[in-house]
């Protein structure tokens, strides 16, 4: 096991940020912490990277205790915080050199590991980090977190605020790093990224709601979800919410996802109801749930 967390808690004054969480991350695994802002993801990262002492519980990274053996952990893990924390007034190359030196290595020594990513920002190596675009900052931060060839990589919301194209590229980079044997713990508020992880923990308000492989979580979901559409989207949400046996109604892009309370639900009944509410072009189709559907239902 690369990471073992047992019953770990952290409270700030009256706020219980992390509430008795336990989970394990296997060697070489790409593990996702999936949850919204305020779920406790960053607090977990800060405890595992030894920047914050847990209020209760124990955690080990690469066999080292996060409190007693923090120095050993710091030498062997890479951490990319959610907030951009490189030196804005140093150039791209200076930042990378600085982080290499701190860890007693050189860019040349581990160049192979960062090559794929670094060549994308190399044309700007003399530009100050503060003047980079969001996507380039993110790539530089990843290079700096990798420059000492860590065994475990902690990435706290690396794709928040990043556009869909750059997000896709970033996950491709993560997959390549995983193939090089690096264990990765990554957090994200984007539920569509969950399916790209080997296993995920769904987390909210400091508690883990579910841990498993994304496909298993989806196949174990026991409710039927219907994708509903009509020509009047906003009115459709309001009318579906007014349907007597409604369990939940959530907009999902082009469609509204609807779950009914009754096990003997017939979509024809709902169709008649929507016709009576003057909806046109009605479509009601059962669909496979997404991680986001399941998250909202927990």
């Amino acid at each position, binding site marked *: 096991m690369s990471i073992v967390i047992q019953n770990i808690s952290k409270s700030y004054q009256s706020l219980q940020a992390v509430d008795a969480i336990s989970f394990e991350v296997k060697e070489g695994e790409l593990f996702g912490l999936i949850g919204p*802002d305020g779920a406790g993801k960053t607090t977990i990262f800060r405890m595992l990277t030894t920047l914050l002492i847990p209020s209760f519980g124990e955690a080990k990274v690469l066999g080292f205790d996060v409190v007693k053996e923090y120095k050993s952990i710091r030498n062997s893990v890479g951490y990319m915080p959610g907030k951009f924390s490189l030196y804005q007034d140093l150039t791209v190359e200076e930042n990378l050199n600085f982080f290499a030196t701190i860890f007693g290595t050189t860019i040349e020594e581990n160049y192979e590991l960062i090559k794929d990513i670094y060549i994308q920002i190399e044309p700007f190596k003399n530009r100050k980090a503060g003047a980079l*675009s969001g996507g380039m900052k993110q790539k530089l931060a990843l290079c700096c977190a990798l420059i000492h060839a860590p065994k475990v990589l902690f990435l706290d919301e690396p794709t928040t605020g990043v556009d*869909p*194209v750059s997000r896709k590229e970033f996950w491709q980079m993560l997959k390549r790093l995983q193939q090089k044997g690096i264990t990765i713990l990554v957090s994200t508020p984007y539920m569509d990224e969950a399916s790209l992880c080997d296993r995920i923990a769904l987390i909210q308000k400091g508690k883990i709601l579910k841990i498993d492989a994304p496909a298993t979580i989806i196949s174990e979901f026991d409710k039927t979800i219907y994708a509903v559409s009509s020509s009047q989207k906003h009115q459709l949400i309001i009318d579906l919410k007014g349907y007597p046996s409604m369990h939940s109604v*959530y907009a999902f892009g082009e469609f509204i996802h609807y779950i009914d309370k009754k096990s003997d639900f017939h979509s024809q009944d709902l169709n008649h109801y929507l016709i009576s509410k003057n909806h046109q072009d009605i479509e009601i189709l059962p669909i496979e749930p997404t991680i986001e559907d399941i998250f909202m239902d927990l």
Partner: protein
Amino acid sequence: MNQEKIITVQNLTKIFGTFTAVKGISFEVDKGEIFGFLGANGAGKTTAMKMLIGISKPSSGKAVVAGYDVVENTESVKKSIGYMSQKFSLYDDLTIKENITFFGGIYGLSRKNIKLKMNDLLTELSLQDVANKLVGSLPLGWKQKLSFSIALLHEPQIVFLDEPTGGVDPITRRQFWEMIYAEANKGTTIFVTTHYMDEAEYCDRVSIMVEGVIEALDSPKKLKEQFNVASMNDVFLKLARNVE
């Protein structure tokens, strides 16, 4: 739909030194429309939006917002619009009530009117019990809903939302969009940026910016037909790939 134009942009351009961030874009937004303004990071969205809300002067071209020219009548533009962004919305170290009073004052509302609006707003968002708490203690989702309501205090004709739902939990994100729909139904025009492609589907029309240029502009349905793909995410990937 009412075809009255609330925003008219002609050849709008912004140059920083040797870099042209916005390259002569032209488009119109109908009154009461939910208009999605999409693009990759660095495509020029924020620069374009800053010109429309009167805080950045165009290098060339013209934009008329709510009937006012953004260069000649900047202050009138600012009075006719609401604005909220993910980065800056409210003062964390003021209470909910204090934030409402402060922004009401900034927008020039009378004390009486502020009091009236305050009651409506607190009731609508079910915030009565926490009205005297610091905004900083609110969860992000609540903060964003409050921020949206405050951007509407002075009943602007159009409201600009810059990534209003980034990092917000999935349920609150949807409640936020229901607020947007309700406001659009009252006739307020919504101009919104987002990185969530499912949210692009909630817009009446969507524009996609690539390297300072508007590459596509249509309803989500027509864009999907045009690019022959199943989702707005795929439309976006087709247009914005290999840019940076």
